[in-house]
């Protein structure tokens, strides 16, 4: 059997109103990004519980990215402001535990920013790929 080329698995949580629409726009414009990026739709970035982020890593994700409306543009007025605080603290804590910073990211992508969505995913996937497999937050039981 051929050795599989290492491809990072990336989970992207996208808010329904901006980022998910931004991802759709990237599709409309046929802007490529790696297929390793898998999107989960949430109503607002503030729906993303830190437990989901850790769960993704546990289950084998190599990178987790949250996308939401730009600060000030939240469909629910303030959701992404809370996301910003929560994830700033969570990511800082993960870094403190020695987990690679580049594995986590928050990016604000509006519904009009299809190009930014694609560029962000390309960049993120590249950075995560450079880190290699997620070893520091893995659950060996979940490895194939």
């Amino acid at each position, binding site marked *: 059997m051929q050795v599989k080329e290492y491809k990072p698995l990336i989970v992207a949580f996208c808010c329904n109103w901006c980022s998910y629409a931004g991802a759709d726009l990237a599709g409309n414009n046929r802007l490529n990004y790696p297929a390793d990026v898998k999107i989960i739709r949430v109503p607002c970035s503030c729906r993303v519980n*830190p*437990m989901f982020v*850790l*769960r993704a*890593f*546990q289950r084998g994700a190599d990178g987790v990215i949250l996308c939401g409306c730009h*600060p*000030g543009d939240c469909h629910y007025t*303030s959701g992404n*402001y*809370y996301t*910003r*605080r*929560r*994830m*700033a*603290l*969570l*990511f*800082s*804590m*993960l*870094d*403190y*535990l*020695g*987990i*690679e*910073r580049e594995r*986590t*990211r*928050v990016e604000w992508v509006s519904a009009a920013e299809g190009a930014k969505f694609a560029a962000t995913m390309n960049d993120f996937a590249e950075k995560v790929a450079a880190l290699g497999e997620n070893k*520091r*937050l*893995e*659950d*060996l*039981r979940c490895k194939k």
Partner: protein
Amino acid sequence: MQKITRDVLVEKAVSLLENGSVSCVLGWKKGEFDYDITPAVFESKEELVSDFIFDDFCGANFSKYLVQKTRKVEGKILVFLKPCDTYSFNQLLTEHRFDREKVYAVGIPCEGMVDIGKIKAITGDGISSIVCGDTIKVNTIYDESFDINAKDVLLERCINCKSKKHVAYDELIGEEGEVIESNRFDEVARLEAMTPDERFAFWQNELSKCIRCNACRDVCPACTCEKCVFNNPKSGVENKAPANEFEEKMFHIIRAFHVAGRCTDCGECSRVCPQNIPLHLLNRKFIKDIDSFYGEYQAGAEVGSRAPLVNYTTEDIEPCDVFERGND
């Protein structure tokens, strides 16, 4: 070492009990040895006189007990609160966890509590008696005796005491203290200054000791959830054991996150950890980050204050910028 004596507290408790102001007293009860003090509910003068104790081993924070006790006890509960305990007390009030009307809080001064682990590290096993004081006198069954400077064996949280000020009480015994400039974040800063690999190795080693006994959670005055997510099979994170390295990290990250902005840094988690994991360094990391990202915030300093994670400003730091700031 404590400036206030046990007798003063007993006298206060007895008088409040006897005049009917309170129906019971939350206090420290003497143990088998001179150091194994148990939190207890005293209901009579006799119990207080014979068993109530207050000395350098009375580290236990009673605030959390109020959540359950106020629901069960008729009448008011007298609770003695050291300065650091008052922060937990206020934080619980902020979160509506108990009825303030059911508590009579007496603030008592604290000169710092000592760590029996540190004493044993000096004396070894076989302690037969300990006499508290600025110099702690320890005798062992091996006919050895030790004079230990109390300042050298303080609990970690007392070395880095953040406040001698009581932020809540109905009555204060002794003088009003001050908030103290502590060096409590030095150790966090030391870890931050390490390379990621070193930090990973440090935490991997520490957290691998965890036996998931839940003592940290169960003693924590911020962890008063009716049902903890780690006990709830539907939460997706429930477990009874640190099944592997991931579960160890998961438990401690999520626990620290859940108390972030609510943790008063009372240090009980590290005090009770049977494996001596420096758990306070996780909570302090959040406190340090909160202070530097969102402005200084002391949970429990005021009742009703808005915790940083249920608050925001439009100018908050972006998650991608936290690393630059964290390493300053």
